[in-house]
């Protein structure tokens, strides 16, 4: 394998206004180094447009795109490499497998200027890597969703791309299948080491894959860094919703306790008061508190001897089974959404109207602008 002195980093600095739409402007500047970088943000944030620009399917209004020293687009030089010459692999959300070709022919599609024998070897290797040999003579319509996802990944990766773009490629798969495919992708990434830009708004995929996260909202980059730093302290409401904060409650700051690094807030119009991490705020300020449903504990008796500072009394308003977990709505004056396992529902004999206590760690509560 030939190694360059400077690893080929994908550098993007572009502006793109949607045709006939003045309100939305994509204006981003980012660098994607080797390994997986997650592009995270709510739908409509401009993630797909950004990928389309990098792949050459959409032409930016201005700016520059390059991989290492090779320039792909430069508006000042009127330079624009067409998509078929960029050697960038792109897995679409819809996968876009060719319906009239078999899995094998789909994978072969991007391999043309190499001898027949090498091509066969490449195809059978990637079929093995993604564990889809058995399906090679099937058409896309004849295989399952997870298998289609693997076939689409294999088709893109077999071309030995310089950069890989993935637009929510695992949407709609169950967690187990997702984990298996993520594992294949990680193995491939470890072996090949190219810049990978992975679009998702699923928090699970961020945790499973992310080395770095770039958060995008409304056409702009609003944060980048390690997943924990970017996503666990959301300063933007839309981002918080996208990141899976099921609870977004309006709040009024009551008082600061700077020595303890906390402040008290009152939720909504209720008498509910909780302690949240200290932020730049003063008494009387209004904001939103974001809490993930998975971060809320439920107890059937008033808990004692806990380090958690926030214990709220309430009644279960509704209980709903969703996939492998239960979604409980608990009325404490304001309504909280909490996730509990079916086992916990049985053990605690949870049912609508039952009195429960919610336990919130201070640092699970985030103040959002």
């Amino acid at each position, binding site marked *: 394998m030939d190694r360059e002195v400077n690893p080929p980093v994908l550098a993007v600095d572009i502006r793109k206004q949607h045709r006939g739409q003045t309100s939305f402007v994509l204006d981003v500047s980012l660098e994607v180094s080797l390994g997986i970088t997650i592009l995270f943000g709510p739908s409509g944030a401009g993630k797909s447009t950004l990928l389309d620009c990098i792949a050459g*399917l959409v032409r930016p209004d201005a700016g520059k795109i390059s991989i290492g020293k090779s320039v792909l687009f430069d508006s000042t030089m009127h330079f624009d490499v067409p998509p*078929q010459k960029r050697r960038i692999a*792109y897995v*679409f959300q*819809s996968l*876009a497998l060719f319906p009239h070709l078999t899995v094998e022919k789909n994978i072969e*599609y991007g391999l*043309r200027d190499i001898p027949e024998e090498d091509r066969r070897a490449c195809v059978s290797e990637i079929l093995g890597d993604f564990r889809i040999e058995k399906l090679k003579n099937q058409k896309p319509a004849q295989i399952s969703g997870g298998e289609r996802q693997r076939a689409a990944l294999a088709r893109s990766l077999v071309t030995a791309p310089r950069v890989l773009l993935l637009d929510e490629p695992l949407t709609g798969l169950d967690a187990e299948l997702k984990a298996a495919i993520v594992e294949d992708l990680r193995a491939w990434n470890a072996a090949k080491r190219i810049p990978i830009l992975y679009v998702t708004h699923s928090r699970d995929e961020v945790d499973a894959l992310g080395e770095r996260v770039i958060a995008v909202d409304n056409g702009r980059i609003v944060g980048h860094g390690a997943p924990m730093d970017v996503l666990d302290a959301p300063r933007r409401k839309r981002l918080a919703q996208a990141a899976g904060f099921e609870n977004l409650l309006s709040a009024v700051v009551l008082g600061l306790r700077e020595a303890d690094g906390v402040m008290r807030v009152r939720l909504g119009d209720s008498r509910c008061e909780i302690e949240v991490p200290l932020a730049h705020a003063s008494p009387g300020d209004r904001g939103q508190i974001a809490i993930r449903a998975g971060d809320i504990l439920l107890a059937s008796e008033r808990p004692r001897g806990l380090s958690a500072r926030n214990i709220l009394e309430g009644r279960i308003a509704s209980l709903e089974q969703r996939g492998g977990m239960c979604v409980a709505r608990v009325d404490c004056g304001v309504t909280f959404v909490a996730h509990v396992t079916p086992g916990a529902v049985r053990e605690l004999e949870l049912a609508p109207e039952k009195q429960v206590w919610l336990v919130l760690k201070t640092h699970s509560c985030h103040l959002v602008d």
Partner: protein
Amino acid sequence: MSSLALSFELAGCVAAILLAIGTPVAYWLAYSNWRGKFLLESIVALPLVLPPTVLGFYALLAMGPRGPLGRLWMALFGHGLAFTFSGLVIASVVYSFPFAVQPLIASFEAVDRKLLDASAVLGAGKWRTFRRIILPLSLPGVVTALVLSFAHTLGEFGVVLMVGGNLAGVTRTVSIDIYDRVQSIEYRAANHLALLLLGISFAVLCLVYAVNRCVWAPAWARWTVK
């Protein structure tokens, strides 16, 4: 040559030529972003609304000894175009143009754009994308275009009468023949031909609708899986 055989020859030539000319035109109309596209679209659709006699009249003028097409033909081949089989083919190509182009446009437009994007990022240029993706996925449209232009040419009357006249074995197509027989009160012979044309037209339309209903789709899938 019988008038029926002549009609078939004419329709076959016209359908083949229209597929060759109509495909690039349809491709351009389906994928171009040019703002003046509607102009070409209108021109292509014109034969749908014009009376065949109007079209035939101008075709005749163009092909006549003093018309531009006629003079060009004379210079190239040493004989005129009007009242010849070649002249008939040219006029019929113009007349049946929309019947070939419209189904092609519709089927090209129906191909998912994401597939074209996928083909491009996999390194395929426009021609390869057309050959490997658009064309195979537009096959029902191609069959429809072929069959419709064939059938439409088979049944045309006004243009043939204007441009071709009525020369047995050269330009006397089946529809002209039927008209002739009726004029000379040979109803039995006219009925035979008319019935034949009716049967053929019905069969052809059955074929088009069957293809578009994807009656063939499963069979096609079986043929192409090796």
